[in-house]
């Protein structure tokens, strides 16, 4: 695959190395001459000096035959424009933008960017995992199907302890898929399964029903 990376910062540098190791044809576009020189010195001629938002630079990089363009500069607006120029001018099939502000995710989607990666959201998600008191953790987002897999712990003292699953008023579109009660022993929940304190429930839900699912499971 021919992949163009915009932005030779830390992320762009390691991304380029990883993609080269996987055997892809990679070209990194970086504005700063010294950074470009250092990268060329280390990895060979994989770096083009220029502004990745400019049509002329992208034409020189052979963007017309690129399979993918990944914009990872530190500025959301630069990543947006690089991806839009690649997509609408050079018809690159897949464009990926890094975003700093997690709120830009919906805006970028609406403006035609295929994939956005928000380091802020990823770090927040990981921290969420490390905070044990947090009652709901996101395990996985299946974006194209509009679903997410979440992990909900039944806190001690919940009014739902001792109730069966069918007694709970769960949102219709959420499905409980597993209950983990003891280590290494997952069970599939049934209508008559009785909830216990400390139960870990793995559920699949659309993001908009997440709050309803959480309050139905955790109780008061």
């Amino acid at each position, binding site marked *: 695959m021919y992949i163009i990376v915009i932005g030779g910062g830390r992320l762009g540098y390691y991304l380029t190395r990883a993609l080269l190791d996987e055997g892809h044809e990679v070209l990194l576009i970086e504005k700063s001459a010294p950074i470009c020189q250092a990268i060329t010195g280390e990895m060979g001629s994989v770096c083009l000096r220029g502004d990745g938002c*400019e049509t002329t630079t992208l034409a020189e990089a052979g963007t017309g035959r690129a399979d993918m363009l990944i914009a990872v500069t530190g500025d959301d607006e630069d990543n947006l*424009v690089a991806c839009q120029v690649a997509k609408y001018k050079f018809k690159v099939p897949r464009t990926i933008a890094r975003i700093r502000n997690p709120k830009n995710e919906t805006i970028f989607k609406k403006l035609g960017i295929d994939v956005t990666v928000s380091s802020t959201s990823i770090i927040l998600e990981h921290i969420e995992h490390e905070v044990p008191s947090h009652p709901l953790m996101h395990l996985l987002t299946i974006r194209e199907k509009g679903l997410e897999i979440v992990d909900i712990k039944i806190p001690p003292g919940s009014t739902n302890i001792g109730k069966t699953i069918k007694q709970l008023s769960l949102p219709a579109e959420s499905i409980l898929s597993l209950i983990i009660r003891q280590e290494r022993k997952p069970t599939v929940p049934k209508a008559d399964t009785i909830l216990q304190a400390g139960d870990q429930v793995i559920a699949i839900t659309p993001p908009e029903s997440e709050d309803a699912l959480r309050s139905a499971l955790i109780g008061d």
Partner: protein
Amino acid sequence: MKVIIMGCGRVGAQLATLLDREGHSVTTLDNDAYSFRRLPPDFKGEALLGNGLDEEALKKAGIEEADAFVAVTQGDNRNVMAAQIAKHIFNVPKVVCRIYDPLRRDLYSLLGLETISPTTVFAQLLKEKLEG
């Protein structure tokens, strides 16, 4: 009409002044409060400190009721992004943005943005001066 001007540089401040004098409701938005020194003392509009790429700041500036949005910061990409947010997210009826780079301007006008490239306009003006 209610106009939001993002970027209170020379052009932004001048435009704000002209529209304000004609009785329009003008809000200028800039992320550097020092830029507002360019507004005249009798300016009746609003000068708001904030980032025009941030939805919250735009809402505070009243973008939901705005009739027009103008993006004239120093950065082409900032202008392009803000103009697209105004047009596609907030459905502002009239959106204009400045793009210095003529090639980038061509692309975004193809994509439906109303854009002005001072580079092209000014070069043309200079050429006419030389020929006249």
